[in-house]
Structures are given as C-alpha cells and as structure tokens.
C-alpha cells in the first residue's frame, strides 16, 4: 500500500493557519480591533453651543455640522436642547443640524455634541458633482487690478495649486504692489482671494476649522482657503500659503452653506468647547462595526444574549487544543476524551478553587452512592439514569447546605454539566472495579490536571478577548489541531515508559 502524499494536507493546514492569522490582521487594521485588552484611543469630544435671543415666535436654527472632515472620523453625534425638535439634514453635500420650536421667547441655548476619532487614513472624498468656478464680476477700477494680479500669478505658476500659492504671496502686505493695496483691506482679504480664484477659473471656497486643544472653551472657528484642483479639495492657509490641513485641525465647515442660520431670533452666535477623551479601543471598534464593510464578520451585531453565549462557545476550541496537546504530545491519560474541557468550562463560571471543591465533593459522594447501585444489579441505562438523579440530589444538597452555612460557593455546583458528571462517576467506578484505585487516581488526576490547564488558558482575559473579537483565529487553532493529528513522534510520557529499553541499546 503506497502512503498518500501528505503535501496537500500540509498545504491545506498552512492555508488554514495563514488565512486565520491574515484575516485577523486585516480586521485589526481595517476595524481597529485591538490585539490586547484595555487598549485606549484618544477621542475628541466637541461641543458647539448656539446662543440667540428668540423674538416670541417660531424658531428654526440650523447649524452646519462636519461631514467627512479630513483626518477624522465621526464616532457619535447628539444634540441637547430641551423642548426643541431636532434632526440632521443632508442636502447637496452639506450637513446641517436643525432645531425647531413653535413658541419661543427670551435667550436660548442649544448644544450639539460630536465625538471625533483622529484617523490618518480618513480623507475627504471626491465630491459627487464636479464643482465649477463661480462667475465673479469686478467693477472698474478693481477689475484692472485683479486682471493684473492674476496675470502676474498666472505667469509664475503652472497648476491651480501653484497659482493659488503665488496669488497668496502677491497679496501679502510685504509684497503688495500698488494694485494690490487698492484692492485689499484686512476685512475682505479672504473673500477677495476666493473671488479672484473663481474669476480665474479655479473653484475656491472658504472652510472653517477648529484648532483642537484639550479642555478649551469658547473657541471660534478659523478660516481657511480651499481650492479644487480637478480631483479634490485642497486646503491652504490664507496667511502663508501653506498647503494641507494642519495637524489637530478639524474642518468643521467645508462648502458653501453658512455656519449658522437662525430664523425667528437675533444676536445669534456659535462657540465651541472641546475635550480630549480616551475610549477603550475595543468599544470604538464595536461602535464602528456596523458602518464598516467588514463589520458583518463579527459578533457585535448579535443580540447581547447570543453574544455572551458565543463568548463561552468560542473558548471551547482552546480547551480542545489543550486536550489534544496534553494527550498527543504529553501523553496524559484522562477519563473521557473531552470531559476535562467541559469541567474547565464549568470552572470558568465557578472560578477555580470553589469549582474544584464542588467537583471533587460531588464526584466522591457520587462514587460512594454508585458503590451501592452496583450491588443492585441494574441495567446500564437505568443505572446511569439513577446516577444522574442522584447527582442532581447531591448538587442540590450541597447548594442548600452551603447556603445555610453561609458559603455562597456551594451554589456554584450547578454550573457543572450533570450528565457529564454522572458518566464520569460511572466510568471511574468501573475503572475502580477493574483496574484498581491506582488507575482511578492516575486518570482522575490527569483529567483534573488537563481541566485546570484548559481553565487557566481559557480564563485569561486575553484568550477571551482574542477568541471573541477575532473568531477567525479559530482557523489557526483548527490548523494546529489538524497538525497534531499527524504527529507521529514520541509522547513525553513514552520517553519515561520506554526507559527500560536503555538496556538493549
């Protein structure tokens, strides 16, 4: 008989393991699920405060709110404004928060809160509709000055970006010529810049940004220049022509809509306060899961009850891995192949010491009762059934006695799977009769040892975290178990067992 080639098997195992790990790495990068528990991420909490005096009438206040600010992602948004109707309206690329109320009088304060996560990869997306340069008409004598300046800037540039930079430079106080001085005044500088760029055929607009500093209050927005270069909106500092959004600058308003409109009130103003918070990275990932295409691969969207069930279930493969390793590579004998895993799962719920005490007392009392059962000459099925009922009596008795004596740990007995315990008692009892107490001690201790090892692994917070948040890692566990199934080397215990063979070497 020719042995089948093992190559396809090893390739499959390799694929399984690498698929599991690479999927986990991918999700870590895409969804930001942290590898370790307790990892923290910074989040900016920004509060916009709108104040106005209402004039005894219906009020409608609209505040422009950020929509895909470059360098940030929006985590949550909420409004606090008693008695007002609130909604966020998206219209032609602008998002506005809108408060409405029928009868209002006196000074009013409205709050809009949003959380932003810094994210290098979040870029402003290409606008749905290609923006066009606005038509601007200048009156004489300005028109001539504008024409002159634009011609100068145009001559020194090749692209919309360089054109913008040149124009800004030309309009700075130290380089101003007679033409410029005629045009520029401090108040209209940015508006003029935008008008001139539009006039020269480059779509341009003003964007308002917020400088992020921890625990600042009553901040106002800073204005920036944005031009469209045919692919995306580029941000320039209108003072020094520096291109790009400065770090820790949140572009609150991009687009043409005005920042704040209040209908039915006056003296309206908006101010901002901000706070740097830290949020567990895992919570962040969970909150974003539904907004991300990869979110469907996780358990976060299941109902909480199912989630907690899966938390437990997903630990089982680790237990199976421990059992496979202990039996195949170490060579520890256990009573029942996977009994140790089930006991370990119960330990996870009871914690180790109370669980051990409960388990040992149930099994030893059960063994004593089984001794009587065996003299009754019962059929196997009814003996096991009787044993199950006895085990339930024992656990109930232990719980009640423990509770009356003030040990709550007595109650934890109920976490043990009754049927498994009954079978364990049955097997142990037969083992005792056939192979003697020695073998019972060996297998019982082996089972408990494996159960404790599995428990120690399964109860680490990291194990629970990785198995639940990266379920794809189970592919790797599966691969390892398959690999172990092909292990043909000596078990550790065999090195001991075969020791007398030294005499023949």
């Amino acid at each position, binding site marked *: 008989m020719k*042995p089948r080639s093992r190559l396809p098997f090893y390739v499959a195992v390799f694929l399984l393991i690498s698929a599991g790990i690479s999927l986990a790495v991918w999700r870590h990068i895409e969804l930001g699920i942290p590898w370790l528990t307790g990892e923290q991420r910074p989040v900016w909490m920004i509060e916009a405060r709108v104040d106005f005096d209402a004039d005894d009438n219906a009020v409608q206040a609209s505040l422009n709110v950020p929509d895909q600010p470059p360098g940030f992602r929006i985590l949550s948004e909420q409004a606090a404004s008693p008695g007002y109707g609130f909604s966020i309206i998206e219209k032609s690329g602008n998002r506005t928060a809108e408060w409405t109320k029928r009868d209002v009088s006196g000074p009013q304060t409205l709050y809009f809160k949003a959380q932003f996560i810094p994210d290098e990869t979040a870029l402003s997306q290409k606008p749905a509709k290609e923006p066009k340069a606005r038509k601007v008409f200048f009156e004489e004598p300005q028109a001539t000055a504008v024409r002159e300046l634009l011609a100068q800037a145009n001559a020194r540039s090749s692209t919309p970006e360089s054109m913008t930079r040149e124009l800004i430079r030309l309009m700075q106080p130290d380089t101003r010529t007679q033409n410029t001085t005629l045009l520029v005044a401090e108040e209209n500088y940015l508006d003029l810049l935008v008008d001139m760029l539009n006039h020269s055929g480059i779509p341009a607009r003003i964007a308002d940004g917020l400088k992020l500093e921890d625990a600042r209050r009553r901040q106002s927005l800073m204005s920036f220049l944005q031009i469209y270069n045919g692919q995306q909106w580029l941000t320039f500092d209108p003072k020094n022509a520096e291109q790009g959004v400065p770090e820790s600058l949140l572009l609150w308003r991009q687009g043409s809509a005005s920042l704040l409109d209040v209908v039915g009130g006056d003296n309206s103003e908006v101010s901002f306060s901000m706070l740097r918070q830290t949020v567990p990275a895992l919570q962040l990932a969970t909150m974003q899961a539904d907004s991300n295409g990869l979110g469907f691969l996780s358990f976060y969207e299941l109902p909480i009850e199912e989630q907690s069930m899966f938390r437990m279930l997903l630990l089982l493969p680790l237990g199976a891995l421990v059992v496979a390793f202990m039996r195949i590579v170490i060579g520890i004998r256990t009573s029942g192949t996977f009994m140790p895993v089930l006991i370990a799962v119960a330990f996870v719920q009871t914690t180790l010491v109370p669980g051990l005490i409960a388990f040992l007392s149930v099994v030893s009392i059960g063994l004593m009762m089984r001794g009587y059962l065996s003299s009754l000459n019962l059929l*196997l099925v009814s003996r096991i059934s009787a044993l199950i009922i006895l085990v339930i009596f024992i656990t109930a008795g232990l719980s009640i006695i423990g509770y009356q004596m003030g040990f709550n740990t007595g109650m934890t007995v109920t976490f043990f799977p009754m049927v498994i315990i009954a079978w364990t008692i049955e097997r142990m009892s037969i083992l005792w009769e056939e192979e003697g107490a020695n073998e019972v001690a060996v297998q019982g201790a082996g089972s408990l040892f494996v159960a404790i090892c599995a428990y120690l692994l399964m109860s680490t917070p990291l194990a629970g975290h990785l198995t639940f948040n990266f379920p794809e890692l189970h592919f790797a566990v599966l691969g390892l178990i398959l690999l172990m199934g092909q*292990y*043909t080397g000596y078990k550790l215990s065999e090195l*001991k067992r*075969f020791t007398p063979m*030294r005499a*023949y070497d």
Partner: protein
Amino acid sequence: MDWISPRRLNRLGMLNMNRRNVDYIARYNERSSYPLVDNKLKTKLAVAEYGVTTPRLLQVVRQQHEISHFREMAEGLGGFAIKPAKGSGGKGITVITGRDDDNYIKASGARVAAPDLERHLTNILAGLYSLAGSPDVAIVENLVESAPSLAKFSYQGVPDIRIVVFQGYPVMAMLRLATKASDGKANLHQGAVGVGLDIGTGRSLNAVQFNRPITLHPDTGLALENINIEAWEDMLEMAARCYEATGLGYMGVDLVVDANEGPLLLELNARPGLAIQMANGRGLLPRLRTIESLKRPHFTPRERANYAMNVFGAL
C-alpha cells in the same frame, strides 16, 4: 526520574503510540473490518472458514430472557468461560473452572453463586464492557485447558501468546503469563508478565513485568529464560491466516495452546499494544519497514510464516 532520549528510541526502532495510530492502524486497517475483530462472535465465524480453530462455542446469550436458559445449559458443564462479544482488553471475562454444590468456582478459586453469574450476563447485555457502551451479546465458551508445559509458568489463568501480524507476516511475538497482581488475567498493564519470543524458534528472549525486566516469575518463581513453545511454525502460520480472514493489515493475534486441541485462537485485536517491544527488547519499526519494502509479497500463510522465521529470527 529516568528518561530515555527520543534519539535512542529511534535507534532502537521503537514504535510509539502516535505513529502506530497514524502510520499503521489508520493506514492498513480498514474501518469496515473492525467489527470483525471487535466482536468475538464474528471473529469466531470468520476465521473458521480459514481453518483457524477457536474454543468451542457453547451458548450465545443475546436477550435478557435467554439468561434463564443459561443455568440449564451450565448444569452439565465442568468449566466454561463467559465473555462479552465486544469486550476489549479481557474486560468482563469470567472463567469458571468447576462446581462446588450450587456455587461455581472461578479461576481465582473464589466461589460465585448462579445469580451472580446471571447479573454478570445482564451487565454484558447492557453493554457495560463493550467499547462504546453499546448493547452486546454474551458468549459462553468451552474452558481452555492450558498445555501443562506452559501452564506451570502462569499463576492461575491461561498463558496466551500474542503475535503481531503485519500484512499477513508475523513480525513479533510474546508469551503472556498471569500473575497474582494481574488477578489471573494475561493483561500486561494489570501486571501480567510478558515474555518476548524469538520469531525464528519460539524460544523466550526477555521478560518484563510492569515494564521492568525480570528473570523469574514473581509468583511461581520459575525461570523465564528457557521457555520453548512447541509447534511454533504452526502457530505462526495460524496467526498469518487471520490476515486472509479479516483483511486487517496490522493486528494482534492472541493464541492459546490447549492440552487437547492444540493451538486455538482466543481473539484478534485491531489495536495491539506496544508493550510487546519491551518484552522482546527490540523495536517493531525495522521489521515493519522490512515488510513494507517487500517487492514481492508471499501469497500463502505458510510462506509468510517461514519468511518471518528466517528474517526476524534472533541469531
């Protein structure tokens, strides 16, 4: 703690548990043939066609209500053995050597009443001794009377001979002698003595108990060095024949030598243990590889037995 290095074990060609399971049992033993060896009744019927003799079958108890017939049948018998058909490792085998009024005398000399035996039959039918706890049948066989030349070495019980047969070639053999520690059972891990036998001649090589080398039987005190099995070639051929009967490529064949009927097959085992290597002081792997690399296998059991005697015999 004493350890042996894996490299030394490799040099000795020791077959280990994992390799036995993956490279031999899984590869050479068809799953469908397992019931044939896991069920002693089926084994009996299957090997009979190939001229392998087994202890005479007295009664088969299949149903609970048939147990009442057992007492009638047992009335006229001197000695018999009750076995679960699907039992493994000698579990659930009760050997009755005689009668004492109403009581039966077990091999150990203990007396048991008829109701105890009936309870034992009930347990067997319920599957207490079967591999997966599945319902079983009990078979009652004629008592094997061990040939005195071998029986004297054993403390109670019947000495049996385990031969590992690989692809129809007997590759290694040992004699198993019951001891007080093993409760009259020829089960090595319960404390029976294993005596390695030279495949070429049927003479004893080494002896071990609890994996430790010994030279004298702990209970009978007899020297274990010069045991010689008679009709060795016939026994090897009989073991080799079981390959045709079952198709199992890697199995253990358990034989006994009856005083009247000669060699009998007790049972077959699709997962023979590794202790035979300790009893022989040799590893199985070199022999298994020799057989695996055979270009032209021999077709008749006799040829295979002769080949094994020539190639694997000790010098």
